[in-house]
């Protein structure tokens, strides 16, 4: 598995949630960096303590009332990040994949479904995972009970990829109760993910 970068936004959360969310993010990666965003001194100190306790390298950057805590996990990550430019690395690795349909490409439906299944399976086998997969419109059908793609999305999720399904779309297709993997998101959050991404791939 390659180096991963994850971002955890803990702003507005009460103690001990910021530490817990940071822990969960660090647990999902083998090596790489977690950037925890916090809005208060206490959460900052607690997360720094936590990161040091996990033998990670920590750097804190402050912008106005917001702290960005960069936590490096794994010796390989440390040297790889040192060797390149940290900011560029963050940009390169923060890829978001947006899937807007339950089929891949235009043409025969059956072929499109096959290609989508094949695409998601292949995505689980590549070296570098995206930060998030956002499912929109009929794309949400890939993550509901009975879909053959659920297991691949679960594999991705198990490796730290955020699987996000559009809530409006789930409602439209009456599938909210049937969501089998990932979490429900909204347009505001989708726009935030897209803006923060180094690269958005739309299917």
């Amino acid at each position, binding site marked *: 598995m390659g180096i991963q970068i994850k971002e955890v936004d803990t702003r507005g959360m009460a*103690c*001990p949630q910021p*530490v*817990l969310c940071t*822990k969960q993010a660090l647990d999902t990666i083998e090596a790489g960096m977690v950037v925890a965003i916090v809005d208060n*001194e206490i959460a900052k100190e607690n997360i720094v303590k*936590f990161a040091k306790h996990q033998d990670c390298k920590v750097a804190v950057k402050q912008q106005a009332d917001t702290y960005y805590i960069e936590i490096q996990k794994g010796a390989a990550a440390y040297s790889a990040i040192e060797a390149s430019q940290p900011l560029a690395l963050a940009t390169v690795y923060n890829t978001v994949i947006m899937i807007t349909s339950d089929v891949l490409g235009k043409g025969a439906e059956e072929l499109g479904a096959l290609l989508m299944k094949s695409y998601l399976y292949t995505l689980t086998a590549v070296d570098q995972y995206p930060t998030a997969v956002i499912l929109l419109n009929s794309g949400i059908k890939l993550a509901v009970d009975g879909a053959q793609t659920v297991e691949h999305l679960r594999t991705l999720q198990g490796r730290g990829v955020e699987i996000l399904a559009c809530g409006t779309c789930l409602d439209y297709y009456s599938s909210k109760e049937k969501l089998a993997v990932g979490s429900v998101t909204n347009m505001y959050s989708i726009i935030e993910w897209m803006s923060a991404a180094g690269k958005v791939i739309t299917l």
Partner: protein
Amino acid sequence: MLVGTETSDDAGVYWLNETTALVQTVDFFTPVVDDPYTFGQIAAANSLSDVYAMGGTPITALNIVGFPFCTLPGTVLAEILQGGQAKATEAGVVILGGHTIQDKEPKYGLAVTGIVAPNEIYTNAQARIGDYLVLTKPIGTGVITTAQKAGLASPQSMTEVIASMTTLNQAAAKAMQAVGCHSCTDITGFGLIGHVCEMAIGSKVSIELYASAVPLFTGAKEYAAMGLIPAGAYANREAMAAHVQKEEQVLEVLMDLFYDPQTSGGLLIAVPEAKLERLKTMLETNCTIPHAVIGRVLSAGSGQIIIRDSNGL
């Protein structure tokens, strides 16, 4: 009025006649554990503690309750009150009534009235030079209940803190009174250092604490090192830092624990050297929770706390 707000003591004391003074205190808070009955026990033990810390005997109490009737079933409230009642009964206290208001989250505690002989009041302002400081419960309830909220506290840690928080300070207070000590306070929201500091300021002395002698609950050190530290600990550090000096080798994680706000913590007793052994024996015999000698009153001063790594005791 015999004890008011000036010395930040545990309870107010009001003179009635030569033989009797009233001791009054109130405390209530939001749940620190999930189980309502246990929460009721903890809140009541915590409220009663202030009377014990003054050397008093609690007599009556009133329930103070906030409860979200819209989101929680009434049976939860009933269990909280049963827990409180159980501790009141154990303490020989009669709950005369109380008051409940609709609130966003549950809150519970007692307003307690006790009595004390005016010449047998234990304030936090009578520690004397050379006194040893004895703590009757371990430290770390804030950190461990925070770890519990994160789902990270071990069953062993939870068993220990719940056993400690639900234990009345009655037996420890009786041991202290039987031996005859100088000064007493209970360790609660301001943390170990905060309450030691109040004793030092009130008694106009400086106090040294021995970091490695302070008893800690299982897991407290690990969870504190993981950053599972409640906001109150930071507020306490902010408020007390000017009074505190520490030896370099005292670990930062221990300092975090010494600032950790305690719920239903132990008594901190200042006892003269000549009576120390007797107090230790009495506590050993009568209390279920282990005690420890954690420090000493050094010299006249204005509330300085010196934290040494070990004691040489």
